[in-house]
Each structure stands twice: as structure tokens, then as C-alpha cells.
């Protein structure tokens, strides 16, 4: 079945419009909200990595591995190598994530279901264990990341924050369009087929492992990119980026948004960040409990996530 072209392009223009609206917000939004959105977009990228694996039926409880690698690579490259350009730093972070995925992917693609979840978790905890004990990298405290420059331009004060916000909007939009293309490509469609029935995909002459491997590497790349962006925006990194509860948070956001569309993880991340900001102020001891109750409610009553509320009237787009 060939995919209707107009839907693919409509998502592309929708992303572009959303990106422009958010970009225009640079001069309207209060600084705290712009900062919150910057981090939410970065988080959305990591969650997108979780989501494209969920489309293959794999739940990664260790996506924080790449989130943390991205963050630490940005921190290290800026501190030790003296690279200050944001684009170069993000490229390095993405590259490092992809390299790591190429190294682990051959092993991980042999596993499904809970074994995949456990093994990804183990990998991220190995990194956590190593970082916590490495005093050169600041052990449990981590270290600060210097403010980046943008192609030779080094903004100060508010301009710095605005530039980072714009950067996160641009990166998120570019990745969203790219991943959307990926999801509707023939490879992206086979990924869903692998989830439905792996053995039959094999009978069709395709290698599910090769498909899952490419998917895993793509997911790792964007998650590392999200980690790098987080490091730049927050100006600080620590080993908690790799701990398994961070991965759990990404899984939560993925389920919150749903896997139906490339927008979903970003919507999930924004809703999550806004609610968390208020919840931590108002009732810090109820925050995790709220998360848990919402997660249970989602699984029981809204298994396709928030996106299914938006897409309910347009079943044609749910498939994209």
C-alpha cells in the first residue's frame, strides 16, 4: 500500500507552522516559560527516541543512557576541547550517541519485551555507576557547562536564553520533520510490521534485526541530541541523567503523549513539564504519586495517549 503523499506534506507544514508560532513566542513568552519550553523540547527529542522504539514494540527503560551521553559529551567537549559552538557541540553529542548505539545495537536487537527493557536499563546503570565514581567528572555533583556561542556569535544575558530557546525550537522542528519522513518511509512502516508479527516479516525476506538496529541507532541519535540540548540549556550535567528513574520519566512522557504521531512526544513533554513545575511548587510529596495515578489512568483508559484525543476525528492521520 502506498502512503498518501498529501498527509506526509501536511505534517511537514504543520511542523513548520508550529515552529514559527513557537519561534515568534521568543519575544512574547515570559522568561520562565521560554526556559521551560526549551527544556521540554529537548526532553521531547529524547522521548521521540523512546516513541520510535515503542512503534517497534520495544520499551526502552534505559534511554537515559543516550540522554546522559549527549549531555556529558557537550560538557566535556566544551570544557576540555574548548569547543563553544552550539551546533558543533550538538553534532558531537549526536555522533557519540550514534557510535554508542552502533556498539550496543548488535546485542540489544536480539532481545524483545522485558529483556530489552532490562538490558537497556542495565546499560544506562553501568554508565551511571561509572560516572558516580569518576571524580575527574565531578562524581555525583557533575559539572557546569559554559554558555555556548552560535556560529561565532556569543550572546549575553537574556539574548543567550532567547538564542537557546530558538535553537531548541529549530532543532525540534528539524528532527520532527526528519523523523516523520522516517516513520512514513518504507523502513518506518516495516518497523510497525515487526511489532505486529516479527516472524512474518522474516518470511517476507526482510531482516527484523537489521530494521530494529537502524531504528535503535536513529533513536539513540535523537536522544543524545536531546541530552546535549538539555546540557546547553540548563548549563549543568550530573550522573542522575543516566539513572533509571530518568528513563522511567521518558517512558511516562511517551505513554502520556502516545505513539501515534511525531508531535505526540513534544505535546507530552510540554504538558509534563508544565504540570511538574506547578506540582513541585504546590505539593512536592504528591508529585510521584500523581505521576503514578496518571500513568495507571492512561494505561486503563487512554492507551494511545493524549494524541488520540486530538486525532480522534481524523483516523487517517492516526496511522502516520
Amino acid at each position, binding site marked *: 500500500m502506498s502512503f498518501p503523499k498529501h498527509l506526509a506534506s501536511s505534517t511537514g507544514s504543520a511542523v513548520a507552522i508550529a515552529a514559527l508560532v513557537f519561534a515568534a513566542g521568543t519575544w512574547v513568552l515570559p522568561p520562565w516559560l521560554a526556559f521551560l519550553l526549551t527544556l521540554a523540547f529537548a526532553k521531547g527529542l529524547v522521548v521521540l527516541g523512546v516513541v520510535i522504539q515503542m512503534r517497534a514494540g520495544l520499551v526502552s527503560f534505559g534511554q537515559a543512557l543516550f540522554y546522559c551521553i549527549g549531555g556529558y559529551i557537550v560538557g566535556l567537549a566544551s570544557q576540555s576541547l574548548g569547543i563553544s559552538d552550539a551546533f558543533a557541540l550538538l553534532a558531537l553529542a549526536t555522533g557519540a550517541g550514534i557510535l554508542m548505539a552502533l556498539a550496543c545495537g548488535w546485542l540489544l536487537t536480539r*532481545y524483545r519485551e522485558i529483556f530489552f527493557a*532490562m538490558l537497556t536499563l*542495565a546499560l544506562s546503570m*553501568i554508565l551511571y555507576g*561509572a560516572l558516580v565514581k569518576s571524580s575527574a567528572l565531578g562524581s555525583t555533583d557533575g559539572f557546569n557547562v559554559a554558555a555556548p556561542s552560535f556560529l561565532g556569535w556569543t550572546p549575553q544575558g537574556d539574548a543567550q536564553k532567547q538564542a537557546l530557546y530558538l535553537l531548541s525550537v529549530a532543532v525540534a522542528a528539524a528532527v520532527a520533520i526528519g523523523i516523520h519522513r522516517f516513520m512514513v518511509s518504507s523502513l518506518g512502516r516495516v518497523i510497525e510490521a515487526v511489532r505486529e508479527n516479527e516472524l512474518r516479516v522474516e518470511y517476507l525476506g526482510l531482516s527484523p534485526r537489521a530494521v530494529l538496529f537502524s531504528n535503535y541507532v536513529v533513536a539513540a541519535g535523537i536522544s543524545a541530541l536531546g541530552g546535549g540540548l538539555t546540557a546547553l540549556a540548563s548549563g549543568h550535567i550530573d550522573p542522575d541523567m543516566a539513572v533509571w528513574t530518568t528513563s522511567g520519566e521518558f*517512558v511516562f512522557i511517551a505513554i502520556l503523549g502516545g505513539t501515534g504521531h511525531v508531535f505526540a512526544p513534544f505535546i507530552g513533554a510540554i504538558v509534563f513539564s508544565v504540570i511538574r513545575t506547578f506540582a513541585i511548587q504546590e505539593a512536592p*510529596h504528591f508529585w510521584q504519586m500523581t*505521576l503514578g495515578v496518571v*500513568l495507571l489512568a492512561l494505561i486503563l483508559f487512554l492507551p494511545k495517549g493524549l494524541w488520540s484525543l486530538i486525532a480522534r476525528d481524523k483516523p487517517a492521520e492516526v496511522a502516520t
Partner: protein
Amino acid sequence: MTTLIAILLDGAIYASWLFLVAAGLTIIYGVMRVLNMAHGSFYAIGAYAAAATVGWFFSGEHGNPYLSYLLLVGCALLAGVILGVVIEQGLLRFLMGRDEILMVIVTYALLLILEDATKLIWGVDPYFAYQPYRLLGISDIGDILRFANYDLALIAVAVFIGLAAWFVLNRTNKGRLLRAVIHDREIAIAMGVNVNAMFAATFVIGAVLGALAGALTAPAISVTPGIGVEVIVLAFAVVVVGGLGSIGGAAAGAVLVGLSRSFAVHIAPEIELFVIYGVMFLVLAFRPQGLFGQTLARRI
């Protein structure tokens, strides 16, 4: 030589602790196919209940101090039974038969809820219940090695629980039925085994074991928020190494992980955490089903 004895004893103590924590997790998985993340919370709640009760017990004249050991076990039983019954009957019962990975996420939600519930009940300040730990005194082994008898007693408790589990599973009628359910749920149902009752009983037993592990650990640590989250990933490592769902596997996994960690602590302390997950990773890389797990045929 002294170092070797220290390593082996430390390893044995740590392995016993790991086994206590992992036993409930692996039993629940074996029977119900639920990898229960909330097991960490059972551990934490057991620890809090025990620490709070023992703290109260020693705060005044409440009788023979040795009664505190009974209190530890009593708290674990009570906490485990309440948690197990409420969660199994109130939630999991309605979700049985769903994807294994979905159940991981459901129990993750439970973990989040129980973590905050623990903070709401017992607050965020640490609890200390060191008296039962001190009460047993210290043994000198060789010239320089000193081990707390409480830790050594933990080894005996772990061995006892392991043997008890083996006996129940292999030598009693209920245990044989349970093994039938583990082996093939559908055939067991067809043969008239009341699988739902089995599930309920298993979950309560698993929860009690989790709470018991917490209660027995409480005197040796300061009970603070977050211990459940730390413990659950260790327990995962152990059961995954041994093969999910097998008691013998949990024991083997505990020994392997316990000894590896104790070697790391004595020889290269900076790689302690690294080693635990490294072992898990290596075992999974070469034997995905764990040391004692069975390979399953692929479904079409």
C-alpha cells in the same frame, strides 16, 4: 588469605541480602509473568514499618529486647499481606494476561505511587533501628576480621528461606500445582487448577518476602526515602542473571553478583556499581535467558 576470607564472607552476606530481596520478585514473575517494579516499594515499606516499630519498642520499657526480632518479622508479614492483597485484588487481577512489558509499566506506576505514600506515612527523615543489630554482638574471625553476628545470621535466614521455598515447591501438593502453573498456565487451567487463587497467593507471598527483606535490612541501614528505587534495579540484576522466575536462579544470581561486588569492593572500590551491572550485561550477552532460564520457542 585474610583478604580472601573477608571477600568471601562479605560476598556471602551481600549475596544473602540480594537473595532475600530477589526471591519474592522471581516467584511473582515465575507464576504470574509480572516483572514487579513495585517490589522495591514492598522492600521500602517493610523497612519503614520495621524501623518505626522497633524504634518505638526500644523507646521505652516494652519487655525483652529479643522480642524485637519477632516485631521485625511481624511488621513484614503485616505490611506484605496488606500490600499484596490490596494490589492484587484491587488492580493486577484486572490486567492479567496483558503484555509483559505493559505490566512492567503498570507496576512502575505502582512504584511511583507507593514511593510517595511511604513519604506521606513516615515522612522524609531517616529512621534508625540499630538495636537489633547491636544486640547480637560481633564475632572475631582470625586476628583482624570482625563481622556483625546480625549479618552472619542473615546468611542463615537466606538459606532457610531458599530451602523452605524449595521444599514447598517440590515436596508439597500446593507447590506442585504452582509448578504446573509456572510450566504451562493454560494446561494447568484445563486440568482444573484455580489459577486465580494461585496468583493471589503467589503475589501475597512475594510481597511478604519483599517486605521481609526490607524489615531484616532495616536494623543494618538508615531507612531513608529512595531505598526502594535503589533496591529494585539490584534485584532485577540478580533475577535476570539467574534466569527470571527460578528460585535456584535467583540464588545463583545472588551468589554471582554478591561475590563479584565483594571482590570489586576489596580490590577496586571505584568499580563497585559498575561490576554489578557489568555481570548482568555479560550474562545476558551470552545467555539471554539467564543462567537457569529456559529458552522459549518463538511464536508465529
